[in-house]
């Protein structure tokens, strides 16, 4: 996709967004609400006509060759639903009839742990079950690329984690996964590469690890000590640490890179310093967003 631009009457939704998604990866479009994620995705799958820019999906023009694309892509959309008064198996049977070579939907439902719900009405499913049914429908055409829009919004943390496992399984089958999310943690844990959008512009594009590393931010190792049995000078000159803060029994050590935490812990052990509640805090994508925009994601 190159130079995507989409204007609505009076509003510029997306401007100059360019990126490429590789085969077999989980690609995340990340940003706060209103950043233009859904608009971008809807342009890619051909639901909206871009004001300017070029989009190719599997080599097709989504506007002019949408029919060919529909059989090779699977989509789950944020504000799409299914008829309340239809049963799960009726819905699956219906959608299977739309595709030339659909997968066996009984297997898909079993895989999504929905096989016990085949006879249930769509309206009687829980939020997570509805999402899983929508995933099953997205996988039904045996697509090469699957799109998910805000898949885990509205799910509790446990269901969200389960959803991540499903997405990893989809990638294992060799599918390309394209998703949008406003959960930075989700993007960081799940995506191979992320594109961060803010105010309709692309502000970062890389793997989550490299984006975080690129920050050059320090990570922090914190622990508690017993002040009465500690000679403060014992904490001086810990290897790998760039600076140290101490407040009563709480000690916070800062450093950069990957190996320093181990070095510090080793030193604590050799110096026979007794510590409790050892924790590390790594910089996250959230910090990347903060550094790039000067604003926190959730305001």
């Amino acid at each position: 996709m190159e130079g995507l631009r989409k204007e609505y009457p009076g509003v510029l939704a997306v401007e100059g967004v360019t990126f490429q998604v590789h085969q077999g990866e989980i690609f995340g479009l990340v940003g706060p609400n209103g950043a233009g994620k859904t608009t971008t995705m809807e342009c890619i799958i051909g639901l909206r006509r871009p004001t300017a820019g070029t989009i190719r999906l599997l080599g097709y023009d989504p506007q002019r060759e949408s029919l060919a694309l529909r059989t090779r892509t699977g989509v789950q959309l944020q504000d799409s639903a299914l008829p309340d008064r239809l049963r799960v198996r009726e819905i699956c049977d219906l959608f299977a009839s739309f595709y030339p070579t659909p997968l066996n939907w009984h297997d898909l439902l079993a895989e999504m742990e929905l096989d016990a719900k085949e006879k249930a009405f769509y309206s009687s499913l829980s939020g997570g079950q509805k999402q899983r049914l929508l995933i099953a429908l997205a996988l039904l055409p045996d697509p090469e690329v699957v799109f998910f829009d805000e898949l885990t919004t509205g799910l509790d943390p446990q269901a969200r984690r389960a959803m991540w496992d499903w997405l990893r399984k989809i990638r294992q089958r060799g599918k390309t996964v394209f998703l949008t999310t406003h959960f930075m943690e989700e993007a960081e844990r799940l995506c191979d590469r992320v594109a961060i959008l803010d105010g309709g512009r692309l502000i970062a594009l890389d793997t989550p690890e490299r984006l975080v590393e690129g920050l050059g931010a320090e990570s922090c190792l914190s622990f508690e000590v017993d002040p009465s049995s500690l000679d403060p000078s014992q904490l001086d000159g810990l290897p790998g640490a760039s600076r140290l803060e101490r407040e009563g029994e709480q000690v916070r050590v800062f450093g950069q890179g990957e190996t320093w935490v181990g070095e510090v812990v080793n030193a604590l052990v050799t110096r026979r310093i007794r510590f409790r509640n050892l924790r590390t805090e790594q910089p996250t994508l959230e910090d990347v967003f903060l550094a790039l925009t000067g604003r926190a994601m959730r305001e």
Partner: protein
Amino acid sequence: MRRKTLLSFWKLFRADALRYLREPIATFFSLLFAPMLLVLFGSIYGNQPTPLFQGRGTVDVSIPAYLGLVVASVALLSLPIGVASLREKGVLRRFRLTPLRPLTYFLADTLVYLLITILGGILLVSTGLAFFGVHLPSSLGSVFLGLLLGTSAFLALGYVLVGLVRTARTAQVVGMVVTYPLIFLSGAGIPLEIFPHGMQQFARFLPLNWLVTLVKGLWLGDSWGAHWLEVLLLVSLLAVCTILAVILFRWE
């Protein structure tokens, strides 16, 4: 691909019909409302032959108007509300993301509403037979064809309404505002013959009266030739509304 399209058509038809039949209130209104009104007004007027209707009973001559009521309430209320609510909830949007062709969807949807209308018509005529000994027309086939033409035109008009309104709620309001005057002036409930002359003249311009006049004529044994004007008007309505519906239709 063609076999697949046919399969999609039947699956859609089946899903659509199931969805409709599982909505008890909608089903009740489109299938049982007209027979109930017929029983109500029929027991007020009776079906004694009267000179006003050239020796026919009041129920005999108003059956075509009640058939018009069935057509109008399915085509201008059930259909727009049903399609608009599917669109509002994003079901049509989900369909759009599949290789399903829009034409397949329209045809399946239209067939469902056509069959509901026919079922409603059969229920109505059966009620007339059972309660009032209505005289059946000599050519049921002609009446059926006339009704089919009129229903198709009104279903197309219903799809125009879908394109004009934004939500299912507005579809309901607009549908009622359009439908009730049409029904009131079609001769269902109150026979048109007892309306003032001016009202009768005005009613001739209403599309539902084209349908009712045609069906009534065919029911009473007129030839098609005697009603070429109504046929022409209904065919034009069908053509214009089909074009408008295609232009105005939105998936979301």
